[in-house]
């Protein structure tokens, strides 16, 4: 009997570690995001606040001249867009917008190891080391994909660079993840620079700046629900 108990010690230890994991897992993360885009010498700025929960729920709030706009969505793509001033809500369940399309949600759900490429139908085909970097190459499972391969480079397990290649081997888009911040054991890149090469000479730049990252804070916004008396409007505009 004693030997049996001793023999179970490793098993118990593993069980304890697994059971302890949720204690260290973040459940709610929020941040303010400034989205900058530049094209043809012109640039625009948009700001929003993003609230992500580990159950896959995401709420985005934009302060506009017309009041606050709420976008609620989840992993299944059930989306509601609510205009606070007009008290109108548009709903869609076709998966137009998934919560996992938000970088904050990818990191919260710990999917940064492939940056969600698996969900896009890509599989890991090669892993190499270049100096201090680890480079992972993902290729599409289907031949008719738009990109021939995707490379993600990690520095100390943190994704710092992502490149999408066309079928001629040229880079279409490069994404740089930088200025990582550690907030309550939640590591996140606060600056994401995306460069898309429209052709050999031209490019488009998109810059996402994350500020005020809050982890596991009791912000009532996480539990926001569209008021039941909101006027429902279909996405095609018919009331």
């Amino acid at each position, binding site marked *: 009997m004693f030997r049996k108990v001793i023999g179970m010690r490793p098993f118990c230890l593993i069980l304890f570690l697994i059971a302890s994991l949720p204690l260290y897992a973040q459940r709610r993360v929020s941040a303010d995001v400034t989205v900058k885009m530049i094209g043809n010498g012109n640039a625009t700025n948009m700001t929003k606040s993003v609230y992500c929960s580990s159950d896959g729920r995401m709420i985005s709030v934009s302060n506009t001249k017309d009041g606050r706009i709420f976008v609620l969505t989840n992993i299944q793509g059930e989306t509601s867009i609510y205009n606070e001033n007009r008290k*109108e809500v548009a709903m869609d369940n076709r998966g137009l917008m998934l919560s996992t399309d938000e970088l904050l949600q990818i990191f919260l759900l710990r999917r940064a190891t492939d940056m969600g490429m698996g969900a896009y139908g890509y599989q890991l085909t090669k892993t190499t080391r270049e100096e201090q970097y680890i480079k992972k190459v993902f290729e599409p499972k289907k031949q008719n994909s738009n990109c021939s391969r995707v490379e993600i480079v990690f520095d100390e397990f943190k994704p710092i660079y992502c490149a999408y290649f066309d079928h001629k081997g040229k880079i279409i888009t490069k994404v740089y993840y930088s200025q990582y911040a550690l907030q309550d054991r939640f590591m996140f890149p606060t600056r994401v*620079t995306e460069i898309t090469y429209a052709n050999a000479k031209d490019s488009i730049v998109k810059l996402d700046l994350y500020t005020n990252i809050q982890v596991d804070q009791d912000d009532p916004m996480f539990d926001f629900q569209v008021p039941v008396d909101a006027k429902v409007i279909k996405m095609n505009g018919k009331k």
Partner: protein
Amino acid sequence: MKKLILAFVVIMACSFSMNAANYTINDESIDNLFAEATMVEAPAAAASAATAAAVSESNNKTIVALVLDTVGLGYFGVHRMILGSTNLMWLWYTLTGGGIFGIVPLIDWVMLLIDVVNNQNSYIGNTNFIMWT
């Protein structure tokens, strides 16, 4: 206009290193890029922002589409729905990973920006997946 559009956003790619071995970027050069660019105020239609997706008959669908594309809904073709494309256009954008991994909506955004600046509505009712070809 087409040629102008094709010549858009010469972001001085040379300012970024094209060396594949370089996995970092000079943040200062990017900041300078935005500092030197002409800031375009988010259109007044931004007031309705994402809720604009629910607007059936807008007097300025192009502005609304531009705003939607800016806030990220362009990845799912919502801006094309506003412009009056085919019913399944959103599906094409979604299936191609957000319009060929976001490239199409990015270029759409520039096209719409130019359209707004020139007070045109060139892309309303366009049913092509790539509306600017």
